[in-house]
Each structure stands twice: as C-alpha cells, then as structure tokens.
C-alpha cells in the first residue's frame, strides 16, 4: 500500500470502522459481535480480524439462530467460524421453538419478535454482554439515519431517540449505568454500494445465495420465495418453478424475497446494483409494515 496517495472513500470507511471496533473493545467490559451471516456481517468480521491482527479478536461472535435461516447460511457460518478460529456462540430461543413459533403461521412480526428480538435480549442477559456490535447501516431505512454509532439502550433494551449521546469528532461515550447496554454500529456510514465494492476489493467470501443460480421458487403474497425445506406446504395454486434468482439481503427463508437475476459474480452484482431502482429492504417481509415499523421495533429492542 502506498502511503503517500490520498485515502479513497473505501480506505476512509475501513479505517473508521476499525477505529470504532477498537474503541468498543477498549471501553466496554464485555462486548460481543452479532454475526448474522449476511454480507454486512462478512464485512464486519473481515474488519474485526484486521483491527486486532495479529491477535485473535478479543471478543466472541454471537449468532441469533431463528431456526428458519437458509441451510446454506448455517453451513457457511460454521465453516467460516472454523477457518477464522473465532469464538462463535449460537443462541436459539428454545422457548420459542418449544411453542412451535413459525413465520408463516404466526406472521413475520410475531416470529421476528420471539425468535430475534426476545432471543437477542435473552442471549445478552445470559452472557452478560454490555455492548453488542452489529452491521446495521444508516442508509438502510429512514429511522436508522439518526442512529448513533454508540447507541444507548436503557434497562429493558429500549431505545429512546431523545436520550442518545452526541458524538462530535467521533468521540464515543461508552459509560453505562445499571442495566444499560450499548449497540455499536461500525459500518454506519457505509452504503450498500460501498459494502459490495469493499467485498470486491478485499476478496471477502459471502454466502453463495447472493449469487444468481437456478433455485426452486414459488410466489406467495406477491413475493418471490425460494423453498429451502418442506416445513411450509405449498398452498393450492402455488407451484415450485426453477428460476435464476439471487438475494440482496438474507434472513429467514420464508421472510426473504429473491430477485430474478443473472448476476453470478461480484462485478455483475455491483453492475446490477448501479442499475437497480429498488431499495435493498424492499425484499424484506418484516419491513412491510407502516413506515414507522422499524422505529417501533427498535424501541422494543429489535436490533
């Protein structure tokens, strides 16, 4: 790397994210990195390894497993954990599993609440984590545009938009009172385009579901879904059709819309992104509530 050339936008984003990760580890008693297996998490993990090299990351990774993620995601997760040697912990809300919570039967909102929001709160309490690092970006959704990098959650994991701490000069205040925790967002300033350009530049491996391939699809509620297992029976009139599709975001498979695409490598994905006129979250069933739903979910403790 030539040090005399000016830093590019990607260089600056990378450096700032590494600074945030180091600051979190330096100032928080028991931080954890929430690893969701998606592209943003892949970038986060890459940054984490860089930030503390040659030491192994001095904090564990936590995956909230809803039991509905694509099988390819789980295989990818376990392999990456093995290859990088990070301390990965998986948490499942067993009570939710026992009740048989199901994204189809119970609906996206209830399923997300039980298997993600409540599961996260349980996991943070179980391990006593005081700071959870996540891959949320401010460009994802309007209410995130005002999120701090170090976001304070009161006891009960609630987010109060009026109590957030100013962060001039990126000076983060990680001090906590009883019961308070932090969410930390190191890639706040990144856009979806930045994420892909960085993945391309650094050669970061992502789940193959991001690349176009022929997959078994069906349409429900105007949403193109890829059937990953037989837990969801096809309704009358629905049928499985093989189509070349890929995903822009990943989550529980019945809640994640595929897009028809031929983009089978990184260059093609970026080219498609530059041309596409749909926002990234348009494919998420969980966000299809009124506009304020994300803010409400955040107040209730969603990431």
């Amino acid at each position, binding site marked *: 790397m030539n040090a005399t050339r000016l830093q590019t936008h990607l260089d600056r984003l990378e450096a700032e994210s590494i600074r945030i990760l180091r600051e979190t580890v330096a100032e928080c008693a028991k931080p954890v990195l929430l690893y969701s297996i998606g592209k943003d998490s892949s970038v986060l993990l890459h940054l984490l390894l860089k930030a503390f090299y040659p030491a192994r990351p001095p904090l564990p990774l936590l995956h909230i497993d809803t039991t509905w993620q694509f099988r390819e995601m789980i295989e990818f997760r376990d392999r990456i954990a093995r290859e990088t040697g990070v301390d990965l912990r998986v948490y499942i809300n067993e009570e939710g599993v026992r009740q048989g919570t199901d994204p189809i039967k119970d609906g996206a909102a209830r399923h997300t609440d039980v298997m993600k929001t409540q599961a996260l709160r349980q996991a943070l309490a179980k391990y006593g984590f005081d700071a959870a690092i996540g891959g949320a970006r401010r460009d994802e959704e309007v209410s995130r545009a005002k999120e701090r990098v170090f976001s304070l959650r009161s006891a009960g994991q609630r987010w109060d938009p009026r109590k957030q701490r100013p962060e001039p*000069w990126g000076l983060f205040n990680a001090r906590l009172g009883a019961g308070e925790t932090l969410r930390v967002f190191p890639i706040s300033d990144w856009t979806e385009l930045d994420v892909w350009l960085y993945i391309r530049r650094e050669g970061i491996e992502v789940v193959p579901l991001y690349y176009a391939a022929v997959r078994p699809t069906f349409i429900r509620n105007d949403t193109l879904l890829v059937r990953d297992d037989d837990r969801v029976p096809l309704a009358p009139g629905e049928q499985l059709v093989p189509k070349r599709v890929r995903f822009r975001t990943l989550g529980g498979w019945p809640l994640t819309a595929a897009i028809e695409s031929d983009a089978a490598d990184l260059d093609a994905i970026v080219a498609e992104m530059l041309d596409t006129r749909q926002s990234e979250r348009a494919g998420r069933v969980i966000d299809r509530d009124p506009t304020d739903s994300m803010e409400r979910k955040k107040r209730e403790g969603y990431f």
Partner: protein
Amino acid sequence: MKATSDARVNTTRPALAARLAALEARDTLRFAMCGSVDDGKSTLLGRLLAESGMVPEDRLAQMVRDSKVHGTQNGRPDYSLLLDGLEAEREQGITIDVAWRYFGTDKRAFIVADCPGHAQYTRNMASGASTAELGIVLVDAHAGVLTQTRRHAAILALFGLRRVLFAVNKLDLIGYDEARYHAIEHECRELARGLGIEHADAIPVSAINADNLVVRSPRTPWYGGKPLLEYLETVPVERRLDAAFTLPVQWVNRPDHSFRGYAGTVAGGRVAPGDEIVVLPSGQRSRVARVVGGDHDLDAAAAGQAVTLTLADQIDVARGDVIADPARPPQVAAQFACHLLWLDDAPLLPGRRYLLKLATQVIGAQVTEIKHRIDPDTQAHLAATRLGANEIAYCNLSLDADIAFRPYREDRRLGGFILIDRETNATVGCGTLDFGLRRDTNVHWQELDVDRAARAKIKGQTPRCLWFTGLSGAGKSTIANLVERRLLAAGFHTILLDGDNVRHGLNRDLGFTDADRVENIRRVAEVAKLMLDAGLIVLVSFISPFRAERDMARDLIGEGGFMEVFVDAPLEVCEARDVKGLYAKARAGKIANFTGIGSPYEAPEAPEIHLHSDQESAADSAARVVRLLAS
C-alpha cells in the same frame, strides 16, 4: 420485482471494470448542511438526492404516498419526507436530530450531516459540524440573512470549518431577482469574513423547482457558477499533508510475549519503520520497528489510516498515550483555555467534576472559570456563572493530570473534546482547546520536609475526614458534636467544620445557587484537606446535597482518608423537627433553592456508614461512628 437489466446489457465487461475502478478510487466529501425546515433544507437535500438519481423507486413511491398524509405541499410530493425519519418529527413537522445521508456520483462519495436548524437544537449541529470538510448554510432568499443564519455560520466557524457555502434558496419567491440575490450574497460573504471563515461561496437555488441543483437553471441566466451537485463534486477538500505525525494509542495489542503493538488511527502526518518517536505525556523515546496494517506490514502509513505500531524498545505505553514525532510533538498540559458548547439540560457548574475525553484520553476535569458566554447571534461577550443547554462560552479548564493535545485550529482530533457527567454518564458538553495555560509550570508545589504522616505521628492518630451529609434537620451537627466530644475525651485531636459556621466566615460571599453550593463544598474540602495534613481528625457537617461534590471532596482528600457519614431521616421527619424554622420559611416561599423543597438532595449510594436518625438515638449513632473510626 425483476431488477432492470436493460442498462446492464449495454455495459460491456471492460467498461464495467473501468467504472468499478473509478468508483473504488473515489474520494469523500463530508459536509454539514444547516438550516431550518422553514429554509427548505430537507426539501433541498431530498430533491438533490432524487434529482441525482440516488433514491430508489420504492422509496420515492413511499414518499409520494406519505406526502398525502404528512406532507407540507398540499399533497404534492414533499421531498423533505425522504429525510425526516422519526415519528415525532413528522408529527411535529420539525427535524429533531442530526440525520446522516449518503449519496455519491462517479466522482465523489458524500457523507452528509443534515443538521437541525431550530435554536434549541444547536447542540445537534456539533456532531455534524465537527467532522465536516464543508459547511452549507441555507438562506431563505425571501427572508434574507436572519439571526439563525448568523448562528449557523458562527457554529460552523467555532467547529473549525474553513469553507462555507451559502445556498440561497427560494429564488422563486423573489422572482429570480438578480439584484436581490447579489445583496444577500454580499451580506453572506461579509458574515463569513467577520467570523474568520477563509472561503465563502454562494449559489442561488430553488429546491422546489430544482433550479441550479443538478443543471444550471435557465431562470438564472445571470448566474455563471456551478450548479450545486457539480460544486460538491469539485470543491477542493483541505487535507493537511504537512502535519506532524501523531497517533493516539487506542489499544495495546499483546497476543503473546513475542508481539507488543500499539493500535490506533494516525491523527496527522505519516510514519514509517525506523522513525524516531516520543510517547506523551511520559516523554519516553524510541523508534518505530514495524507499521502493521490489516494482516501485513506497510512501508509507511499516513493520516487517517488505522494501524498497529511496534517499537524498537520495551517501554511502557498504554491506551490514552500519544505516539508522536519528537521534532514536532503535541503540547502537554493540564490547564487550558477552551471554547465550550453545553449540551445537557442540567447546567454546567464551574468546579463540578466531569470526565473529559479527548482522542483516546479520558481524565477527570472541571471548568475552573467561565470567562464569558458568547452570544451566538452577535458574538458579544456576556458574563455568566453557569451555562445552559446550547450555550457557548469561553472557559478555563483544569484536568487531574497532564494530557497531550494540539490547539483545535491545528488539529481537530487532538483539540476537540467531550465532557461526560459522572453520575448520569451523559455526554453533557463538547469543546475545542485553544491553548494550554502554563499555570502548572509557574506555580510549583513547595516540597515540604515535615509531612502529614510526621504530624499525625506525634499526635498518635490516623488523620481522617468524617463527612456528615444529610437534609437540614436530619441531625448531622448533633451527632457530629457527640462524636467530637467522645474523640476528645479519648485523647484525639479534632476539628469540626459546620456548614452554618463556615458560611458566616470563609464562605460569607456565597449564596445558595447550584454554582455557589459547588464552590462552598470545594472550599470546605480544601480546608479539610489542609487540616488532615496537619494531622487532625476532621469532622465536616454540611448538607452537601450533590453527589458530584461529595465525590469531589472524596477525590481531593483521597480514598482511605475520607469517610462519608449519611445522616438519614425522611423529609417529613426533618420538616416536623424544623429546629431552625427553615422548612416553614421555604414552604412559605421565603427561601429559594432549599434542599428537599426547591432543590434536590442526592442520597449517597455507598456511604461508609448509614445512620437512621429517626430510628436510633444520636448517642447510639455517635457511638457507631466512633467504633467505625477505631476499626
């Protein structure tokens, strides 16, 4: 929802590779946009994003839908809705917090701090302006340069912005009148000059009609400059390449005994293996052995890069230290003149102890003096004894120990700081260091041969400070008196400092405002400390209602020497006793700020001893205190 593929078909692989290479090589412009909704700020920014093709179709469609419910354009598309995210602000029609927006062209990526304009949210401008390379101030052409315009420009200047663009909006409302525009432009340039802003630019725009946003408008043929987007793509960004090397240490990386690295972001200058360095504030010297970036070694690293340095010598370096070029090192001081912007609803009180964070250094701090408050509209200097939310002042600041710093105008990263409240943990203030005060080097501590231990020894006792705190009427003085009598009878040397008595003498110049209460306690703590040095057992009987001040006394006197005695009784009990008739007066409104009635009492969280004067006799309480002292 099939992704559009028409354009892709026309994109050949080599052309695509070239475009991706260009995108990868883009630089960044960070800018802060200031103005109120009345100026059309959110509309301008929303329109700029939409016109430059940055807003996805589903979001545009949602904006159009929302415009019918929340919009301010009579149901027509309201572009400000692309920016205003929180429920509360849509309901109130105001922007209550900094919103961060991201867009870009093939030439540059933009990080936009969309700053709220209303006066009460001045504090939110701080986050946006602090890291901006360009400030944009929106001016309503119809209204002209307002108080608020002056305030925004002043805050940008305070935060070190050297270039400001005045976007003169609503040209449609003045009929695209050239003379009117030039008058406003002239006024803006004068304003910038008066504030010491080096570069001031101006563009006439109409956000509603998209004039001069992306292309030059035919309605302003008299304007020969660039449209806004092109201006943003080409405006020079000042990057100081000649600065001296500094790296605040964030994290000491010690995976095993073979590697000891100092991780941090280069704040200024460049560094390469072999370079001589100095570690501040300790002053130790060494040389750089390796510069590690990511998973490999670098030939060198420059400002902005996150790296890990290893040094040639084994020296003691910790988080908060600053590694620097010994030829041009940062200064080291513990007392400063600074500008301070207060962020919290509870006021700044001089003498109260806060935590200061600057770069990676965190240290105890207090404002020792408010030199003057600055009127944000006129820049006039005003007298002040406290500072409320959104107020700006010029202050003297005193830290518990030396830190490494540079004046803010030279280096934002080593000159900008925040203050944190020790009780609430809130970020309550932020400021910029102007220069170090050399008081440290001028006022030497007199080295004394006879010390506290020597004086205590001939008295055969361990000096201690018993700090009695509690409501008026709780029984502090009664118990303290009994304790002193018992100690005296047992042959100990004591002194009792009573709140009422001290206020008749040493502190007769102080009243009962929060600021005066802080000073009252500070003086008593200093006196108690001198008496401890004299070898005495000091009994202090003061209401001392604020936790922060008792903590200050504890810090000053030192853990071990300080024992907090909480004389606790319910307010109703104290009020019923009302030995001095003060509660009756306070209830009658004759005493303002009376603790427990007009002013709060913050009970100790972990006192050394907790006495319940409504449940046991004063004599029993006193006996317990004496036993604690003997243990």
